[in-house]
């Protein structure tokens, strides 16, 4: 019975729309703008959130990732490396400095500063201090000044596995490190954009000097990624680095000067508590103090959401105002249509249709109009996004590959439904109240 009523409402609603195409179109025009505004705001805020989130995730790691810091002392690096070997749910990252170019010269960007500041002196980090375990620091005696030469200094990051599972690096060119193959003698490195810019800008010999390494290395540059870092960086496999630097993971001199040893950055997938416990147990067993180890979850999304919430609410408020104009349009057309269809509605009631179903038919018409408009607005929004990405995508790398967010589609459908109900409710009530006797006698 309900199905019969529902089908009747849909059939008659569809007939009504087909019979008044121009009116339906006119009511759709204003509603289209309203729904499109809601879709655009929702899509915009989703995309902005994702773009901002991606940038934050490049720096801090994906939302929910467990990030750990372990000091690079007492054999901790080797313990971490052996524990994580072959695992895909955790990666350790060990940073050091390297110079690419002529050996024994002062790099163009001494200290690994961004090339924008190259040649402005070693002011990037400020004076180097040496601190003891009590926290008493004194300025380090400046090392003997080396002659200027064709070399650039980069931050070198050695990885135990594919970090992209935790930090969504965007490929720029070439390929990423292959952790499945056997380690190469000539270490394969992937540059970040700043390091690639340095190599492009300054023609330096393809030789790499790594702090603490036994020999100079001739690396193979296999790709460039965007890692969201302003500092020039190169990424390589830890096992390939070990070939040239057996003590790769131990404290380097430069880091000692900065008041600590090489630290290990750990990235663990959420829920890997067992692994975390295992690592802690092994490290404590090796003599690393528990206070020196830190593990915490990355909450990038939470931070982003709170920042975007107010902005989104303001824009949604504006979009709903536009939607209200659309609702007023559909209401206006709906009321005019009911006035015109008095005889039809009276006749339908005369042949046995209930007031409720008659109201349902008027609502079904406005709901169908609202949904049709929503579908068009969502389609226009998705197409508009693709066009915008084609035109401006290259200027905003974080937007590359962005898909139309489903949340915007849902918001559009909800807006269409709300507009359909609000715009059709009063006409529906009026239609249901038409007195059959008066009309049929006229």
């Amino acid at each position, binding site marked *: 019975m309900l199905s*019969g009523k529902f089908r009747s409402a849909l059939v008659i609603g569809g007939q009504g729309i087909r019979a008044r195409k121009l009116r339906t179109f006119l009511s759709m025009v204003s509603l289209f703008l309203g729904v499109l505004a809601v879709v655009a705001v929702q899509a915009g805020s989703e995309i902005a959130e994702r773009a901002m989130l991606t940038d934050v995730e490049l720096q801090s790691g994906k939302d929910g990732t467990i990030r750990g810091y372990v000091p690079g002392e007492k054999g901790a690096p080797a313990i971490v490396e052996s524990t994580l070997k072959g695992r895909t749910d955790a990666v350790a990252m060990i940073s050091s400095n390297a110079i690419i170019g002529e050996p024994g010269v002062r790099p163009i960007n001494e200290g690994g500063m961004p090339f924008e500041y190259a040649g402005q002196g070693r002011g990037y980090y400020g004076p180097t201090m040496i601190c003891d375990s009590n926290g008493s620091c004194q300025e380090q005696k400046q090392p003997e000044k080396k002659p200027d030469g064709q070399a650039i200094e980069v931050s070198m990051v050695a990885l135990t596995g594919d970090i992209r599972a935790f930090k969504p690096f965007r490929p720029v060119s070439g390929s990423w490190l292959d952790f499945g193959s056997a380690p190469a003698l000539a270490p394969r490195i992937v540059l970040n954009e700043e390091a690639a810019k340095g190599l492009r800008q300054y023609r330096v010999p393809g030789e790499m000097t790594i702090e603490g390494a036994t020999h100079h290395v001739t690396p193979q540059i296999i790709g460039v990624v965007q890692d969201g870092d302003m500092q020039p960086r190169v990424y390589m496999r830890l096992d390939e680095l070990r070939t040239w630097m057996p003590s790769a993971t131990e404290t380097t001199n430069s880091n000692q000067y900065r008041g600590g040893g090489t630290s290990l950055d750990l990235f663990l997938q959420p829920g890997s508590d067992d692994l975390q416990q295992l690592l802690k147990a092994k490290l404590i067993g090796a003599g690393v103090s528990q206070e020196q180890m830190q593990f915490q979850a990355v909450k990038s999304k939470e931070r982003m959401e709170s920042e975007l919430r107010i902005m989104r609410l303001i824009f949604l408020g504006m979009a709903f105002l536009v939607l209200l104009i659309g609702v007023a349009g559909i209401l206006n057309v709906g009321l005019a249509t009911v006035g015109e269809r008095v005889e039809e509605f009276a006749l339908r009631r005369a042949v046995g249709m*209930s007031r409720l179903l008659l109201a349902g038919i008027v609502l079904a018409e406005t709901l169908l109009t609202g949904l049709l408009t929503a579908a068009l607005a969502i389609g226009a929004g998705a197409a508009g996004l693709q066009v915008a990405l084609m035109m401006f995508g290259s200027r905003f790398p974080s937007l590359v590959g962005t898909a139309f967010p489903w949340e915007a589609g849902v918001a559009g459908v909800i807006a269409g439904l709300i507009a359909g109900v609000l715009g059709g409710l009063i006409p529906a009530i009026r239609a249901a109240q038409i007195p059959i006797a008066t009309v049929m006698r006229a």
Partner: protein
Amino acid sequence: MTQSFDQPTVQVQAPLLQLNGITKVLKGQGEPRTILSGVDFTVHPGQSVAILGRSGSGKSTLLSLIGLFDRADEGQYFLHGNDITKLPERRAAALRSAEFGFVFQRFFLLKHLTAAQNVAMALVNGQGWSARRKRKQQVMEALEQVGIAHLAKSKPTRLSGGEQQRVAIARALVRQPRIILADEPTGALDTETGNLVVEVLLNTTRQGCGLVLVTHDHDHARKMGRVMELRDGRFN
């Protein structure tokens, strides 16, 4: 309970509908006006009744009360012996669909629908649902009954007045009602077409359907089994 049966042949049968002491007062902005005053009225299966009367005598009001378009202020209404005087609107709608077929002077065909779709309108009213094929069959049978099956796909604007009224009659017949209520169905037609329409309506009574015809035309009224005249809200 007052019953006046003019045709002995139908007296043995229980009445299709029976109105007792029906009063209807029109309450507008001015003084209330009594349209019907204590009217008694009965229709039996297969009986045709013509209601005559001057404009404003209450003919159409009586018809709208019989057809459950409106409610009486006083009196009782029995349908198949059941008291439906205070029937809720939802059930009244179901009864309109199942029991009555309506034919109006102004046809009330929807211009954007074909003749067949106009007839099908009485089937797509939320009172049950039948498959498209069955609906089509019912519609074609009703159109055949009034002799215009060949015009099924025509829009009302392409039909003559008589054809349009026959589409309206087919719409009234499609649900196989027990009672046809016709409010001046020949008022907008020429004499010849009017006669044809009255013949079509009378045919329905041969299948046991009751017919109540409101008309100004005495010739048409005489063709009915019973003629009643309303004057100042009362039957003479």
